[in-house]
């Protein structure tokens, strides 16, 4: 099967929540040279396309979520030892002062499927997050927020990190940032994306810069 065709059938299988077809579309041959690269070449464009579909109103969040979950499961099954960090550009993700964890879960799921290793801090307040990021020497911090007041708290994280002398790139996302496309700059973030899969591209770019 040609790569484009494979990506397309993988995407279609995910959108109809068909695990068996999704696995078949990946169809990892045992003699594949670099299986991680090979799988990512299918999985990443498919997830990005589903994310883009959501942004444009063609797919739903339930599909985005189920696609991420199925992909993550398949990657774990096919390549159980992938994702070991090989560089010092440490990445972490947190939900800021919010009780809504789905955005973070979606981002984790796509990044892991794309072969990234990232620390999941769960739910955090501003001070604890700053401290933890500094202690763990994190260079790229992803923050997910669903409520507007939580999104506005990113300002505090930016200030706290500056005060602590930590050189950290902040990537924000979640509904408030989708509904106000200026909010991410206002709170002092370095980047945003209106979809979870958009994080792949952003983090890739930042890592290249940092390493």
């Amino acid at each position, binding site marked *: 099967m040609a790569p484009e065709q494979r990506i397309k059938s993988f995407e279609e299988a995910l959108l109809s*929540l068909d695990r068996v077809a999704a696995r078949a579309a990946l169809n990892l041959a045992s003699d594949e040279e670099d299986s991680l690269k090979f799988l990512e070449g299918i999985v990443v464009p498919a997830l990005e396309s589903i994310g883009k579909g*959501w942004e444009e*109103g063609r*797919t*739903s*969040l*339930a*599909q985005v*979520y*189920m696609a991420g*979950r199925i992909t993550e499961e398949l990657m774990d099954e096919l390549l159980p030892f992938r994702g070991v960090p090989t560089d010092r550009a440490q990445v972490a993700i947190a939900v800021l*002062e*919010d*009780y*809504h*964890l*789905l955005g973070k*879960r979606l981002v984790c799921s796509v990044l892991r499927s794309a072969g990234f290793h990232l620390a999941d801090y769960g739910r955090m307040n501003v001070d604890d997050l700053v401290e933890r990021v500094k202690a763990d020497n994190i260079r790229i911090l992803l923050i997910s927020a669903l*409520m*507007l*007041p*939580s999104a*506005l708290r990113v300002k505090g994280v930016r200030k706290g990190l500056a005060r602590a002398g930590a050189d950290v790139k902040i990537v924000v996302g979640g*509904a*408030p940032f989708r*509904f*106000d496309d*200026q*909010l991410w700059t*206002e709170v002092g973030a370095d980047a945003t994306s209106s979809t979870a899969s958009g994080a792949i591209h952003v983090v890739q770019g930042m890592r290249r810069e940092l390493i």
Partner: protein
Amino acid sequence: MKPGKMTSMQRVLTTLSHGEPDRVPLFLAATLHGARELGLTLGDYFSDSRNVAEGQLRLRAKYDHDFLCAAFYGALDAEAWGAEVIYRDDGPPNSGAPLLRKPEDIRGLTAPRVSETPCLLKVLKTIELLKSRVETEVPIVGVVISPFSLPVMQLGFDAYIELIYERPQLFWRLMQLNKAFATEWANAQLAAGATAICYFDPVSSPTIVPRDTFLKTGFEVAKEVIGAIEGPTATHLASGRSLAILDDLVLTGTSMVGVSCEENLAELKTAASQKLTILGNLNGIEMRRWTPHEAEMQVKRAIAQAGGGGGFVLGDNHGEIPWQVEDEVLFAIREAVHRWGEYPLNWVKDEQ
């Protein structure tokens, strides 16, 4: 009828029957701003029915809008089932950790009774107080979180999506309980004096589930519950998209739909083709940094796109104005509705 002579109730009823009232009705869902008006923290404000009634009446006097909103906050419907509610000073309270730790917990779940649930009784008392003050002059809106959307707070969003697709039996058992609750809760609000019920159902939006899933789930649930609610309803998708399911929403029996700023209002109005009144679609999050001039331009745009022929209520696109939105913007919205919203909307044709 002469311009300026209608009560809010007449204005709203006229637009709902797809006629042109004296001006476009305005729905400012400032559910939180009442606390600021009374100088209270949000926790104190929501602790007493009288505060909310007084706050809403003062806001109406101030912003001159056409509805009284008796809703406290979305997490209240989960609180009724025993969920924890966590307050903050700068925004609406949220539900905490999901009440159900795993899907199997649905088996042992029973629905709360309205008459035995203090947080619900508090809202009913607010409705009674409002009703005693405005009688039939101003519509009073009650809110229920739909049986199909409530499980996000009962179970958590990820677990709920999995439940819909992978555990149909447990899903339908939960729907059974939630339907009974939502119906009783909506009817209690109507009995207390609410004019209409806002059926909050964002999970049914194509933003959240595909239409084919919706037709098998949220649609069936809505048809049944809206059919059993003994008064008019408005369906709100909380800024989720609606265009792809507008025709389906008509079949649920609802009269109005709250629409998203992510979709074109003119297109939605055309698609509603006199079967649904459109409510929207000011972007509440962006509103936080609007200047009064931008607010006016947004109001003007919305009225130009959807005001003609009635069947339109101007409001934000989510059903709640964020705490961070300042008075000068809300005043500008009020002024702009008076300036641009008076029927007939001759200026719309002139500008085209």
